Structure formats: structure tokens, C-alpha cells
């Protein structure tokens, strides 16, 4: 009788563990499923994502601060992973400048806080990120706008490709 009870207890305990594990994972998944983001991003389990990204110097428009259309800037969000965005600036020249505007949405059901914004890039170009982003708290479903200013310095030679990276971290 006692042995039967021991086996039963162990079975119940194992069952309890399984149930709690499932509950734990469901909790994790629920933060995505309840979020207002798109289905693709939810399925990937991402919390803050980019929902818009655009430049102020689209193809065929006069360069910002200049009198003619020479360079152009394109910004896009990775359709497979909305935590990544790409910016491509073409036919730039010393003195060229443009601004990339973007919007971040918190797709989790808990608040997130942007703790750091880091920029890496070559000296030939200046990349400045909206300083107000750092420290911003996004509630569930909350959104915030930010921008990046890019300026090509006089030291940038012609026919050259430069890369820069902006990383936004939070917790």
C-alpha cells in the first residue's frame, strides 16, 4: 500500500513538473502572442522591433541642404527579422548629409527599457543617433521614434564603401 503510494506520488510529482514547465514556456510565448506586432515577428519571439524606417533623401529628391539631386538614401526593415534594419546611401560625397527616421515598437506584454545605443563606424563619416532614445521605457505595445544623422566628411575619398552599425540594447 505504501509502495503504491510512493509510485503515485512520484507520478504526480513528474506530472506537476511537466505542467509547470509547460506553464513556464506558455508564459514566455504569451508575451509575444498578446503583443500588437505582426504575426511574423511574433513567431520569431522578438520583443522590440522596427515598424518603420525611412530617409529624408529618397531617390529622385534634392539632397538635404543642397540644390540638386546627387546622392540618395534607402532604409528598409528585414522582412524575416524586424529587429534588423539596413540603410544604404549611394553616390555620396563630402558634405552629403541625410537623416534616417525610425520607429520602435515593444511587442512584449511587459515594459522594456532602452539601456544603451552604440554606434561604430569609420572616421570618414559621422553617425549620430538620437540621444533621447537612451533611457526610454516602452510599455507593452508602446512605440518611440528615433533618428540617425549621417554626414560624409571631407576626408572621405571617392569611390569608397563605408559601413557603420547602430546597436540598441535594452532590458
Amino acid at each position, binding site marked *: 500500500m505504501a509502495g503504491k503510494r510512493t509510485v503515485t506520488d512520484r507520478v504526480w510529482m513528474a506530472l506537476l513538473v511537466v505542467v509547470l514547465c509547460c506553464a513556464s*514556456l506558455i508564459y514566455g510565448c504569451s508575451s509575444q502572442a498578446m503583443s500588437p506586432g505582426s504575426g511574423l515577428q511574433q513567431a520569431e519571439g522578438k520583443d522590440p522591433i522596427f515598424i518603420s524606417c525611412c530617409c529624408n533623401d529618397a531617390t529622385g529628391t534634392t539632397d538635404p541642404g543642397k540644390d540638386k539631386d546627387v546622392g540618395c538614401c534607402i532604409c528598409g526593415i528585414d522582412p524575416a527579422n524586424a529587429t534588423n534594419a539596413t540603410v544604404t*546611401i549611394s553616390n555620396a560625397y563630402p558634405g552629403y548629409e541625410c537623416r534616417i527616421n525610425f520607429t520602435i515598437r515593444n511587442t512584449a506584454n511587459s515594459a522594456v527599457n532602452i539601456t544603451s545605443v552604440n554606434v561604430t563606424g569609420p572616421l570618414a563619416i559621422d553617425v549620430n543617433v538620437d540621444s533621447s532614445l537612451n533611457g526610454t521605457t516602452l510599455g507593452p505595445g508602446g512605440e518611440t521614434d528615433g533618428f540617425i544623422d549621417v554626414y560624409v566628411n571631407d576626408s572621405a575619398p571617392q569611390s569608397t564603401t*563605408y559601413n557603420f552599425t547602430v546597436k540598441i540594447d535594452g532590458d
Partner: protein
Amino acid sequence: MNHRKMKRGFGKLGLICFALLICLAGTGVGYAAWTDTLTIQGEVNTGELDYGFEDYCCWCLCCPGGCQADLSQLERDLVSSLGYQSSNELSSKLERGRLPRVGCSCPNHCSVAGVDTDGNGHIDKLVVTSGGRYCAGILHFHAYNSGTIPLKITGVNWTGFRWLCAWPINDPVVEQLEPGEAVTACYFWKGILDDQERPYQFEVTLDIDYWNAP
């Protein structure tokens, strides 16, 4: 006895299960937290600043006597000797592709060769070979923007022969030259030393900069 065994067995299993439970619960909570860094990858491609010469040619002219000091007088003499009333009239004829109807009395003719110094398929230097002593001439060329960025021509360099004077009929200096666009230039040139070697050469290049440069 059995009750004690049951309690001991339950205790070990419970400890393991509890630890497992905590780990998995932590995994779930962590999964629910900020899961990824937002990243923006940027690429900046700078355009090309370059120019090219085309339709270049030169004519040898006999130098009216003297021409040592007063270059403007030389210009007037040359224009007159070609049968034109003014430099502007000569310039307009040249732009229409007409050659001055004048016999070259210099002992040798001049010639001009184009050089592609950077190997990008565009002639960026002209090498003019003069016929000989006292020979003057006219150099005519088109300069075009072979790059992708608007440029300005800030000057014309005459190098390779120290005692050379050149002055424009059509100056190619412009503030904005769009990609593919060309400008016409025409110069008088003259070696001014009595003991100049013959033949002699000089080179012509352009100073250019971005159109928006200060």
C-alpha cells in the same frame, strides 16, 4: 519504516524537480524578456569625381614678331593674323568646328596626345608637342564630367615647360558641371624664350573639385 523511506525518496526527487522547475521557469521568463538587440546596418558608397578630355586638337601659328612681353597684344596680333576681328569671333568659329584658314609658317607643326593616367578609360592629361622656336599655337579641347558627382573646374595646369605662356579664348573654369556634361576650352599658348629647345612639350591638366566645395 515505509513511511520514512517514502519521505526520503520524495525529498530527493522533490529537490531535483524543484531545481529543474526553477531552471525551466527562468528560461520561460527570460524568453519573455528583451530577446534581441535592435541593429541598423549602414552602408555609405561615395561617388566618383573625375573628368575627361575629348575633341582635343592644336594648331600651329606663326608668331607675329616680338611677342615677348605684351601677351594681350600677342592675342590681338594672332587674331588679326587669322583674319578675325576679335577673340570672341575666333572662339565662335572654333566651337563650330571650323579651322582657322591660315598657313602654318612654323618649321614644324604641333601635335596633341591624350593620356589616361589612372587607366579608367578617360583621357585626363593632354601632352602638346610644339613645332619649334617661337612657335605659338591654339589648343582646343572639350572637358567633360566623367564621374557621378557634379564638379567644378577651378583651374587649368600648364606644366612641363617652364617658359610657356597660355591665356584663354574660352576659359573652361565653371562652377557646376553635371555628370556627362562638357565645356569647351580654347587657349593661345606661346613659348617665350629665344633659346628654347625644339621641339618642346608641355602638359595640360585640370584642377577640379566637388561642386559644393567651398
